[in-house]
């Protein structure tokens, strides 16, 4: 493990451009500590998805330094990337479920990839799908499910292996408010176990309600980094 200052993610003057185009991310510097809960805010085209892509190792930056779990990505060998990726859970905006696999098999993928025994896989996957309200859809295939159901499967897949970093791109865009809060609670539970959470969203009201650290992107630059006051915590809402 290299020196990462105890951060889960650290960006230093990171820039990203696609091909020869202009930089979509410019001089991004921030860090995430274990157990932090962060919202990534900004208008469409601000670079939120690009920033997430850098964090889930889909791309390398054009310049700057990125360290994940203390590993400098620029010098981390390709062979070592899967091990890092297994510590990251990702909820894609378009879900990216495998359409020919059942909900169960989609959620089981991260465990199977990690070589978890099949009886353990079954136990954990069934439990989690039950928790997200898909107990009766274990064998359903994504094309036969609604957008909200698919989103929950995608979230279940992202959290099933208890990642140390969870990245979610608009994870509540297709579900009703009640389910949105329920899913946020799931993220908070994971957060309590020490995982760093980054949720990219347009839903400012949800951010205000939950009150966590915000990272705001504007035109590819980190404009502000503020901590929103916790107006009303999720737990108190649930209690209400």
């Amino acid at each position, binding site marked *: 493990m290299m020196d990462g200052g105890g951060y889960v993610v650290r960006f230093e003057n990171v820039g990203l451009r696609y091909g020869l185009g202009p930089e979509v991310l410019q001089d991004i510097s921030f860090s995430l500590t274990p157990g932090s809960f962060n919202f990534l805010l900004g208008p469409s085209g601000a670079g939120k998805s690009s920033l997430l892509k850098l964090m889930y190792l889909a791309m390398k930056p054009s310049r700057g330094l990125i360290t994940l779990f203390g590993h400098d990505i620029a010098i981390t060998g390709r062979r070592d990337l899967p091990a890092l990726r297994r510590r990251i859970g990702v909820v894609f905006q378009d879900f990216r479920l495998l359409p020919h696999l059942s909900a169960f098999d989609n959620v089981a993928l991260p465990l199977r*990839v990690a070589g978890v025994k099949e009886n353990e896989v079954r136990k954990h996957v069934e439990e989690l799908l039950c928790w997200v309200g898909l107990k009766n859809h274990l064998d359903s295939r994504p094309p036969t499910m609604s957008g909200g159901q698919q989103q929950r499967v995608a979230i279940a897949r992202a959290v099933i292996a208890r990642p140390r970093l969870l990245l979610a791109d608009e994870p509540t865009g297709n579900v009703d408010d009640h389910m949105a809060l329920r899913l946020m609670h799931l993220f908070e539970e994971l957060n309590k176990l020490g995982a760093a959470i980054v949720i990219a969203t347009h839903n400012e009201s949800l951010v205000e309600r939950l009150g966590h650290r915000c990272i705001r992107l504007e035109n590819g630059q980190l404009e502000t980094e503020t901590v929103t006051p916790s107006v009303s915590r999720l737990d108190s809402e649930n209690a209400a």
Partner: protein
Amino acid sequence: MLTRRTDLQLERDALGRFLPWQIAFMVYLAALALAGAMVLNATMARWNKGISGVLTVQIAPLEENAQKEKKRIKAALEVLGSTPGVIHAESIGDDEIMALLEPWLGSLGVAGDLPLPHLIDVELEDGANLDMADLSRRLEAAAPGASIDDHRIWLKKLIRLMETVKGLAVLVVALVCLVTVGTVAFTTRTGLAIHQDAIEVLHHIGAQDSYIAKQFASRVLVLGLKGGGFGLAMAVASLLGVGSLASRMETGVLPAISLSALHWAALIALPLAVAMVAMLTARMTVTRSLNKMM
């Protein structure tokens, strides 16, 4: 190295429809070529064993007097008997020569009037390296009109021809392997392109290249075994058919088309080998292609 699980929907793509047939035809051709090479090899070994240790001395009929002819034959036999490397030399009787010629000349009465040469069958020691020019000179001196018919010269030419044909058969097998490698590499790359999205997802959740490569390799192995098995069955049917036709021939013009247990084992191993080559090719193709991804 292999897995039964498939996170990728490989059974639905063109790989499954195209590859087994391709491998079946390749194995069919390779099995026929291999069987041909093995039959030639066995035939060559038989001929080599039967002919390489013998030679024939011909003595042209020069004298009207039978007694004088016998003296010439006796002189030739004495020369042969004193030659190192010769185990045994025996004159072939006229009746035996007539019997050999009967299928070609027909009536014995007519044949009896022909000036046939006298023949001496000579058996040589294993690996005997006779100076043929010297022996020929000594025989000519002892029995004018004597000449040596060394089967080994003829056999060497025939063996060279058969070695060439065998080499071509091996070349066919090698080409079949090469074509199989090319086809599998191409179809695997197509499969990678078709399943690119799913492969990206697997990568993002931490799948090693080997995890993805195993799925392709397992699929190609199964398809290779199916296709190879079918190709071998077709080849065996063809070989049995040709063997049956050849066995109906009355003369020994054709070499015996029969395969030993070892030969059959080699033929059965062929589809397994082709399937293994296909599997390894798929695995290497996937690994190399994925290596270009982050």
